[in-house]
């Protein structure tokens, strides 16, 4: 079946990943030759940008560390301005398997009503994914909360392995959450009446570097995200109809 997407982009946020960003870019290109690759270097102090450029990726460098939310949004703005109709987030640390990008795309092709698919580590038993106890508790809490809000099962609310269509790109380019964005993005998408689904994936242990997420995963950030999600429920959200631009101004996203 030919894909309905003609200009796909892989967005790779990377912060001090000089050890593995080249491998990540190479693997994406090898497994998904029609994807353009953009590495967003989030103010790295090492040779991440040079490594990414040497691997043949487009590189956007932030002048200082924006945090994962700001870095990802940079990628979506790039995708919007360059007319991409499909964007997939792939972590720069190598924990997402580029071989499974095709599975995400296949799901979007088969379900034209969807705007985003998320690779979930927990849809299949025995996925072999391990993480710390505090993270597991956090994932549980947000999984329950988001499932209740969106009235559909969200098993992996913190997964950054996501693929969005043009509507999602437009929305995220204008408005993307800050510190721990994956959880809030699910709620945002829901409030904008965009639909998402999960696809089972396997994730690997990190190839190198330090997780931007583990560093963020503290009680403070959990509280912050909880507040954002709960207050977000009472926020008047403009409804996006298919074909319309997301009517949230960039001013609010800064």
């Amino acid at each position, binding site marked *: 079946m030919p894909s309905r997407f003609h200009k796909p982009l892989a967005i790779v946020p990377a912060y001090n990943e000089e050890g593995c960003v080249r491998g990540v870019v190479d693997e994406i290109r090898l497994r998904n030759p029609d994807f353009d690759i953009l590495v967003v270097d989030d103010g790295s102090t090492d040779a991440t940008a040079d490594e990414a450029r040497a691997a043949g990726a487009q590189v956007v460098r932030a*002048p*200082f560390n924006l945090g994962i939310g700001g870095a990802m949004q940079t990628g979506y703005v790039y995708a919007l301005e360059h007319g991409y109709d499909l964007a997939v987030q792939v972590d720069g640390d190598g924990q997402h398997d580029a071989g499974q990008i095709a599975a995400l795309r296949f799901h979007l092709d088969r379900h034209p009503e969807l705007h985003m698919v998320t690779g979930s580590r927990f849809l299949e038993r025995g996925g072999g994914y391990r993480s710390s106890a505090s993270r597991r508790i956090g994932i549980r809490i947000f999984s329950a909360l988001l499932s209740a809000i969106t009235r559909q099962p969200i098993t992996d609310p913190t997964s950054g392995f996501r693929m969005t269509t043009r509507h999602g790109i437009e929305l995220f380019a204008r408005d993307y959450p*800050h*510190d721990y964005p994956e959880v809030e993005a699910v709620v945002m998408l829901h409030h904008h009446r965009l639909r998402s689904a999960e696809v089972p994936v396997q994730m690997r242990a990190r190839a190198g570097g330090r997780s931007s997420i583990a560093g963020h995963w503290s009680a*403070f950030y959990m*509280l*912050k*995200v909880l*507040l*954002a999600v709960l*207050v977000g429920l*009472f*926020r008047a959200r403009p409804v996006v109809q298919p074909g319309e631009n997301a009517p949230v101004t960039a001013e*609010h996203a800064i």
Partner: protein
Amino acid sequence: MDSRVQIVAIVVSSGLFAVIIELVRRRRLMERYALLWLASAVVLLALSIWRGGLELFADSVGVAYAPSALFIVALGFILLLLLHFSLVISRLADQTKVLAQRLGLLQNELEEVRAELATQRDGQSDREHIHS
């Protein structure tokens, strides 16, 4: 404790709480800067409703008139918030400096590229002129 003082305290702290929530809802205040404000509002509200707690606290710090202890708590939060602002402003100032530097460097690079293009174009049109 005089119930008038208590009523005023409750009204003020719940008003503060409502204003903060509304600001976050309207996206005028970012969540990460709202948490400290919310914490102060919640603690002040709790202490103004729960007399026993306030009196216990007043006793333990040696304040004879319990409602005055509310001021101590509020002052503590104000100091915390101010320090927090100073930290945030320092970071913002540093980031603004980096942005301005990057912008200047980019402008310089752009002007150089433009100048280079202009000399190339001049050379080309000169050649065309000679040929015609």
